[in-house]
């Protein structure tokens, strides 16, 4: 067989593997299932894309990141590999029929988690020779994880259904707890573990303690007066992201600022992401909705205006800095009350006890033995006054307890017991989340090395840095000399007259310097 490096060069035009890739791929080729944690931006996807090119059969990838899967299909196409396809809710019925009819032609099939509920698709897939089954973002299977996906709980059954193919579970962030949970949830698979350090040695950490929230804006203004670099500012509130973006826009008319959150329409979101990628934007004020699939190499500053709810999310967000391996800085703005906003978010994530009470007393007032009650999600959300997330949680629980079957409420003998258990579970989950938040809050107040402390619970090695480590190790933002080549947007958007602009835009083959 060809050397793996030759294949890498031939298909992906890289000369060498990055940390961990080769070891993981070797195990897979030998038919060993792997649980791997690799830091963000370390080239996780290559670990299954390369095997897909050299194996006989098909590689199936389950991924919750729709845009990421679309990006990868596109990216492979650009590299000339017309071998990948994505099956998700974006497909039209017609497209899906077409994809399903020629399924065996693809080497790499991406599935979104909800497709795992679709028996027609599963039956079609089962007819293929599946050489590798990949679970991307595998931490989503863990109920303790920060991004739990109920659909992932079906994975073990599916792996058995597919006759236990070689399985690769990938994640960027997994504590030993979550790793164990992944293994427990997938008893059909015998994993060998590949755990790689998550530490990103080119990112320095600063926590800026401020007496009250009003000082945060002032801090940002001072910061951007000194450093005009591609930056992301994370918020937990859409309104605040918007407000600060407007404030910065007015303060720095020569910088290009934007805000980004889930309420913007899809074209606006696309434009902002792409402007940022193309160095047309300097500062994006965003919620956690931004970032998936944004692989901009030169983000220099990641600022947390608000705190996320746990360390895992924080690591994922700072991981967007410095993908080019050049020096970058993470700055967290902290006030004495910094825990309040995330606490409120956690509190509103799961339904309240009163809601559970109301739901069960209504259910027990019905006689479901005569006729089951069909469920319309919107009606229930209104009736119980819950958010979509809360309803999804409730519904999923009721499905597990066989109170909901085929989307209708059916008779159940032991409603009281189920209710007690559910309330207990909610309390337990909330406690756990508060504990996770507490970890992050403690990290803000630590007097040890922030790098050490941040990765402590992941039991992975951490770099020892002489300089540019963290504020506790003597780093301060004033002494930072950012990498010289920072592509700032400047006035790239503005042209003297629309006439020249139009000419250059529509007729690039005449008027543009080609790269």
């Amino acid at each position, binding site marked *: 067989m060809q050397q793996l490096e030759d294949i890498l060069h031939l298909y992906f035009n890289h000369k060498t593997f990055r940390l961990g890739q080769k070891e993981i791929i070797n195990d897979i080729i030998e038919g060993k299932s792997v649980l791997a944690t690799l830091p963000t931006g370390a080239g996780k996807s290559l670990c299954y894309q390369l095997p897909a090119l050299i194996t006989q059969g098909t590689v199936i990838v389950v991924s919750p990141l729709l845009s990421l899967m679309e990006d990868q299909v596109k990216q492979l196409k*650009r590299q000339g590999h017309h071998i990948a396809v994505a099956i998700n809710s974006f497909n039209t019925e017609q497209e899906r029929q077409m994809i399903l009819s020629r399924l065996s032609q693809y080497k790499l099939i991406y599935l979104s988690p909800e497709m795992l509920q679709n028996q027609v698709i599963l039956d079609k897939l089962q007819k293929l020779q599946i050489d590798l089954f990949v679970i991307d973002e595998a931490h989503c299977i863990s109920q303790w994880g920060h991004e739990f996906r109920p659909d992932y709980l079906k994975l073990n059954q599916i792996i058995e259904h597919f006759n236990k193919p070689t399985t690769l579970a990938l994640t960027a962030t997994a504590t030993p707890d979550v790793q164990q949970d992944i293994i427990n949830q997938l008893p059909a698979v015998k994993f060998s573990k590949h755990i790689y350090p998550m530490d990103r040695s080119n990112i320095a950490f600063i926590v800026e303690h401020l007496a009250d929230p009003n000082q945060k804006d002032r801090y940002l203004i001072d910061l951007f007066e000194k450093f005009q670099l591609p930056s992301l500012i994370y918020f937990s509130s859409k309104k605040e992201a918007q407000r600060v973006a407007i404030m910065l826009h007015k303060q720095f008319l020569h910088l290009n600022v934007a805000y980004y959150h889930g309420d913007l329409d899809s074209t606006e979101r*696309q434009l902002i992401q792409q402007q940022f990628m193309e160095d047309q934007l300097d500062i994006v004020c965003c919620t956690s909705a931004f970032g998936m699939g944004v692989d901009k190499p030169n983000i220099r500053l990641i600022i947390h205006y608000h705190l996320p709810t746990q360390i895992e999310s924080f690591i994922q967000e700072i991981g967007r800095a410095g993908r080019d391996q050049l020096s970058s800085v993470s700055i967290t703005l902290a006030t004495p009350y910094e825990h309040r906003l995330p606490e409120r978010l956690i509190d509103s994530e799961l339904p309240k006890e009163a809601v559970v009470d109301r739901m069960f007393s209504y259910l027990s007032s019905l006689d479901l033995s005569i006729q089951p009650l069909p469920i319309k999600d919107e009606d229930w959300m209104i009736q119980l006054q819950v958010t979509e997330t809360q309803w999804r949680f409730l519904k999923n629980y009721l499905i597990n307890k066989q109170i909901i079957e085929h989307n209708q409420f059916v008779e159940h003998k032991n409603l009281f017991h189920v209710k007690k258990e559910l309330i207990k579970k909610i309390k337990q989950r909330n406690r756990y989340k508060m504990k996770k938040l507490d970890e992050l809050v403690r990290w803000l107040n630590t007097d040890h090395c922030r790098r050490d402390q941040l990765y402590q619970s992941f039991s992975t090695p951490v770099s020892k840095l002489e300089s540019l480590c963290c504020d506790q190790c003597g780093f301060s933002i004033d002494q930072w000399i950012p990498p010289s080549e920072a592509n700032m947007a400047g006035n790239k*958007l503005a042209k003297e007259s629309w006439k020249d602009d139009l000419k250059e835009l*529509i*007729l690039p083959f005449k008027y*543009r310097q080609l790269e």
Partner: protein
Amino acid sequence: MFYYLILHGLQRIEGQRSPAAIYHLLQGRRSAQTIQDGNLYQLSEYFACYPTLSRADFNHGIVQLIEKDWIKVTAENLVYLTGKSHSFLNKYSQSFPLHYLHGGNYARAVPLFMKRIYLAIQTYTHLSVNNRNFDPIIDDYSVQNWIKSHYQQNRYQLKEWLIQLYDSLNGFLITLDSYSAELFVKRITAYQRIGATIQQLAWQNNCSIHDIEIRLMAIFQHLLFHIDQHHLELFYPLTDYPFSTNVGFMTASAQKTYQMLKHGWSKDNIASRRGLRPSTVEDHIVEIVYADPAFQLSAFIDEKSIGQILEAIKVIQDHKLSSIKAFLNHQFSYFQIRLVLARYDKDKKKGNEV
């Protein structure tokens, strides 16, 4: 432009309707009531010029207008304008290009047309320099699929296509005010340049998101109108909607009637001149109304009567000519009722779905 448009609309319905009537009109609600309002108060050009306007944003605008003493709303929910807004409307009557708005089928054709032209420009400018490395700015799968098939037909003359596009767009944009032309160009995404967001355009021009949304909509409606007037066939595939006259679908005899009507002939004169029975000419005219959404009915029926007939259709929930005629005490001829049905029947059906 947002507030100007709202005030302008409120002025027309002053003392007669609630502010919500203007919301439905701007948003483009497909109901007989809204269409009738458009006709009755001569606001049909503004129909559907801001389809993404939320009720909350509109209400916020109305509250602003009340608080700043521009309008008063009575207990019966009728609107009255204050002297302040009358003078505002007078003062700025020439400042906003309301004449770019054409309403009706132009308005309805814009959203899809916009997506297609943006994606076509992004795609073809990249491919014209052999660059395949871009992400479509339009997520909509159906639009992406449309581009794929459009590309298949034009792949060997991409540069020619772009040159023609450039000429046509340039020819169109020079007819606009320079601010609108600039806005249009800044919004374009092409090779080596991602277009500006609505927010950015609002910031750059010290105005609101609503102002930009409406102006872009107006520019695009005017572009469709321009395409129509100048028979710019290059653009035809970019819009599915028969926003232009479908003269080709008419019978030859109806086409002849159409031409004569355009030259100012009356219905009866056409019949006698061509030796046709009057009812045949009436059939032609109904055919014309179906084919040409812009065809004026005013020579045959006035706005008020249209309103009455539409109201009757709504009340009796019946499209049978005889029922409508009887319900209205035989005030109107079958011909007049047929004209109204021809113009509004489609909308009525869609109105029921919404």
